[in-house]
């Protein structure tokens, strides 16, 4: 076969493979993704049974734990609206009231149930508020 024709065929096959793989990547990412919401957005527009990734701060005075079951409220990072969350499993070491967390939840009745092993707490060394320096 003519070498230039051979090269063209190879290029078309390679580009075709790239397009197929890229399409698969895009498709799977959109179908497997979890919507990220703040607590106030959850309150406004969440459907029961659907998974959401909620980000916010653990509300002061809201955390109680019995065995491996933890109950707490997560509020907006800069607001007051909050949602109650029941989470089964050990919480990460830096988990505290006032700390920023990310957790995947599903609505079940009046509360939100956290999916096991999805709770992460932001490393406290990295989000200390800036104090004025002289």
């Amino acid at each position: 076969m003519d070498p230039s024709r051979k090269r063209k065929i190879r290029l078309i096959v390679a580009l075709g493979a790239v397009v197929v793989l890229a399409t698969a990547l895009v498709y799977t990412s959109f179908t497997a993704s979890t919507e990220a919401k703040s607590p106030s957005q959850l309150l406004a527009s969440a459907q029961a049974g659907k998974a959401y990734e909620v980000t916010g701060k653990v509300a002061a005075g809201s955390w109680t734990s019995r065995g491996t079951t933890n109950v707490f409220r997560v509020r907006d990072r800069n607001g007051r609206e909050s949602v109650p969350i029941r989470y089964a499993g050990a919480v990460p070491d830096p988990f505290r009231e006032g700390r920023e967390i990310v957790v995947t939840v599903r609505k079940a009745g009046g509360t939100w149930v956290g999916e096991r092993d999805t709770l992460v707490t932001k490393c406290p060394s990295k989000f200390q508020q800036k104090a004025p320096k002289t």
Partner: protein
Amino acid sequence: MLTAGKLLLVLALLVAVYGAGASLVGARAGNRALTDSGRRAVYAMAVALVATFVLLESMFLRSDFSSYLVATHSSTTTPAFYRATAMWSSQEGSLLLWATLLSVWSSAVLYLSRNRMREIAPYATAVLCGFAVFFVGLLVLKETPFGATSPVPSEGTGLNPLLRHPSMMIHPPMLYSGYTLFAVPFAFAVGALVTRRLNADWIRSTRPFTLAAWLFLGIGIILGARWSYTELGWGGYWAWDPVENASLMPWLTGTAFLHSVMIQEKRGMLKVWNVSLVLATGVLAILGTFLVRSGILQSIHAFGASTLGGPFLVLIAVMILGSAALVVSRSADLRSDAKLDAIVSRESVFLLNNLVLVAMCVIVFWGTFFPLISEAITGEKASVGPPWFDRAIVPAALLLVLLTGLGPVLAWRRVTLANLRHQLVGPVVAGSVCLVALLGLGITAGTSVALFVVAAFSLTVIAQEFWRGTRARRAMADESPPTALLSLVRRNRRRYGGYLVHVGVITLFVGVAASSAFESSRYADLRPGQTAAIGGYDVTYVRPTSRVVAAPNGRLERIDLGAVLRVRKDGKGVTTLDTRRSYFPSADPSLGPVSRFFDGESTSEVGLKAGAFKDVWTVIAPSLAGLQPAIDKGDRVFDGPGARLPAAQRATLLAQALDGLAASYVRSPPPATFRLLISPLVTWIWLGALIVFAGGLVAMWPSPRAVHRMVSAGYAARVARELTKV
């Protein structure tokens, strides 16, 4: 001290600006004296930054709380070992570490190449100085590490207890060394493009630095994984967090580059690809630094209060646009000297390996930035979790391990069928035996079995390469087998060092596959004497433990509440595990004198029995409910009548009260929650990393010929200088 630090930083900034200017002007005007002066400016900048670093380090070691940074990231109770590293737990300190490492590595490469690449080096110097101007500029103008406290506190906040782990001491310097070393090939690639000197010389000259960058970044990543496994209390080593991913991306493209440059060196091919890869790696290294400091993505590791996103975005935009413009404008000079002769050849495997590595990088990039992508497309922010990453990455990793085995058995340019058959018989037999053995053992988990089989295939190929090389060496030099093996490696360090790296990576992948697919985990609420079963083991809570730990200066450092567990399998004792939760006092003045010892930071100390085939891992979450009434009572006493006592007496009584609390926890222990894991082959991950490290060192070590070349270049330069004087 603080003023001296600020002045040193300003000096470093001015020298960096001069270095960039002198190098550029000198290169354009062909003025050797000026380009040499630009190079020496880099040395001077390194001296100024190392002095700044030492100055700040001394303030940390002396607990000088007149420094805002020291007061907010260290304390007198922080052990000296960790005071020395508390600097890079802060934004400002980590930026200073970045700039210092950049200046040191830049000085090293410019010194070693001072007699070579005369046209390229000044432009590379200008680029390296440009990076330095950016980072030191941030330190001078936006994030000074030399802010003062007023009034000076008597005690600091302390280093976050989670960071008190040996891995975290070395992890950031390793990562930053990787990032900053990748700036070296980036800078020389820019120099080569500007001067159109696009043969493989710049690649050969910067190769040790590229390899070192790759190695340091890899060590940094693995140390982070080790820290996560042994300190964070969740039992995992990789969570696909954006900041973790940010370090993986340049490592992947750097790996691709280290492979594809061989084709350029051997055949003069893939010039556009190589230069694009190294430029992309440089950009990704900066992107990693940007992700930690911009707050644009949710990450447990990001600096949330950072305002550095804007400047970093500008830098990244300049790097991308400048790189693209250079590559496009030099496309005619980047044409390959040769064409691919056959689809089945070593070049093809290298190319495919590159495509797989770049595809992995694209997957990681897509998944990491997916929240921003989805928001831009659908208006809704969404994220993909670890299962998506695993599904997308595992097939690519499988293909990569297979290619690792195929590469060495294929010849350059063209392969004959007879040769292929001769090379493949052993590895295919090994893979088949592995498959039969796994199925015989009842192991049928699809992707894991596939990975074990291709790993057996590839490891056999590498063993075969060592065996045949040693045999040939023995036939030629009549040496004993160990001597022949050593001479073989010594004479072909790059090749056999590379094979060792492959062995390490395969070992690591096998560890990841086994521990991900066959891990058993559970939570158990146990009282002393009770037993939980997991993965064929019986774990018994034997007794509670507690301890009040004082720092060397006598101040209370932490309270430990833990447990001793006995592990048995089939009725026989396996090991005894000791796990505890350490509670560090909070500096929050609103908390009570006793409760502040329990409401501050706490860390899990993992009970771990690491084995060659299985790890038994546990952490405890003690219940404080039983202690709470006593804690509340202690707060009332020490806030009431206790507050009127002299400070020394109050401290003594408080220590006694805490001792009493710790003792009462042991006397009447409440049920505790344990997380239990049985993970197979986790040790193989760390072992694999060690093999990679060893292989990298072998490959990086200069061969006798390279040393000779360097000495000859130095001698030639000296002769040329003497001749110009005559």
